[in-house]
């Protein structure tokens, strides 16, 4: 017997799926761990975080998925993304196809120059980290704060808590600054897009 399930089965709707992607060393996996922790501090939703990276410490593609649901989360990785953050051209090219129609695309415009769509939120996370926050290292935290502002899925307080509990000693101020920049820049962008 053979049947066609095309058109009969639908991807599950009870999951919010996001992917943070970039190059090894940009802190995408850490950022997703922080975000998952912040969800836990915000409310009682279920959260699963997974990661995928190469054997090298820096460079190579790196991605991390966060799945959020009111229900039991069966499959731990993303099936079809509601939100995609790409910090490099390579990750945008690789993962754009996994984004749902109408999903949110957030791009680091300091490193990405070619876009498959004009529907995206672009912020120069890496530039902002270097010039405004004082260190390139916090680009991931600026991006997290921007995601928090754009999606409303975690509170600012929970995100700050989660970031500071993971931040190495001596980097607290830079991280707080990064959170401020992320929320402010994303709010501006949201206002502009209406």
């Amino acid at each position, binding site marked *: 017997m053979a049947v066609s399930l095309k058109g009969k*089965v639908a991807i599950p709707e009870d999951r919010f799926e996001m992917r943070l992607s970039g190059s090894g060393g940009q802190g995408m996996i850490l950022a997703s761990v922080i975000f998952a922790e912040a969800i*836990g501090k915000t409310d009682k939703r279920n959260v699963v975080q997974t990661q995928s990276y190469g054997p090298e410490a820096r460079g190579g593609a790196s991605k991390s998925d966060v799945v959020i649901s009111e229900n039991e989360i069966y*499959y731990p990785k993303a099936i079809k993304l509601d939100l995609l953050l790409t910090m490099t051209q390579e990750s945008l090219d690789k993962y754009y196809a996994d984004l749902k129609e109408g999903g949110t695309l957030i791009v680091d415009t300091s490193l990405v120059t070619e876009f498959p769509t004009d529907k995206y939120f672009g912020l120069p996370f890496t530039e902002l980290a270097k010039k405004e926050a004082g260190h390139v290292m916090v680009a991931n935290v600026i991006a997290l704060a921007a995601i928090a502002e754009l999606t409303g899925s975690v509170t600012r307080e929970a995100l700050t808590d989660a970031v500071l509990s993971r931040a190495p000693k001596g980097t607290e101020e830079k991280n707080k600054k990064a959170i401020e920049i992320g929320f402010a820049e994303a709010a501006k962008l949201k206002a502009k897009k209406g």
Partner: protein
Amino acid sequence: MADKERVLVMGNQACVLGAIYAGLRFFAGYPITPSTEVAEGCARELPKIGGRFIQMEDEIGSIAAVIGASVSGLKAMTATSGPGYSLMIENLGYAYMTETPLVVINVQRGGPSTGLPTKVSQSDTMQAKWGPHGDYTAITVAPSTIGETVTEVIRAFNLAERFRTPVTVLLDEVLGHSRQIITLPEPGEIEIFDRVKPTCSPEEFEAFAMTPNMVSPMPAYGEGYRYVCTGLTHDTKGFTTNKSEEIAPKMYKLRHKIIDYQDEIHKMRAEKMDDAEVAFISYGSVARAALQATDIVRKAGYKVGALQLQTIWPFPDEKLREMCGKCRAVVVAELNMGQIVHEVRRALPPDIEVHELQRYDGEILTPMQLVNKLEEVL
């Protein structure tokens, strides 16, 4: 009652939490991706509770140290991945022969050889059963979520202590490296089994004495009970033997102390199996893809269910037959080139079709791959 604290825990950390809950006091290991966080967690946590962590020179030394610690009376564990598991195999055989309780966590990555350090696989399934040479009966459990990793590691320790035998916990890279918000079991919530100790005098003591359930009481070294602990086939006192009438009972004991009590060991999660015509059979991370696929096709009106093997070895022949009794077909999904599927074929009656779905490119099977496979089966 106050709500339990919700914590974000990684699969590898869940091993540490479960092990310490079960009474772990000694860990020896050698770091290897994707299992390293188990060693890191033990290095951090064990000293706080009077336990010991040792990083050994390699995996051979690691399991040797774990055997020594267990024989000395401590609950002991090591963690590794395929290449390290291969190195441990010889001493694992020694642990089966000397009936030494211990737990080995194998967070599977791609192989053979050094293979794929950061990529997922389930290709050590058969190695967990037949790693060392010789006849023995292996116990292997395989969790699929973070919460289940805590409870399955506790169960692994309980089984090791109950049956005086090594237990392998098979994780995989996706599970070891994923995180989930969970609540932890309270102290006392899960029963902990400790090895039975001898009550006779040291003079009367026989280390490998036949008992009604075939498990011999085990003293700790230094408690006054003297015996020989050797990998050579031995009599009830532990002395090397070449006598057929002593060899056969030892071999019988090694197998039957486990196989005669396998009902205590088997564990399976069944979802939507009551009226299922087709069932997914899987374990580890793949079970989560199967549950998702089941949910997806159920919503489209198809009678599909999912069976997750939480105990892999000894293989649950009878229980599987019982659970699949009403099924017309099963789909066995795993991240290897076909290992557990042969056990399923052997266990199920010939009128149930056995379909197989495998992935061995370093990625996990997706729910849609499982759904698409059903097009051939439904």
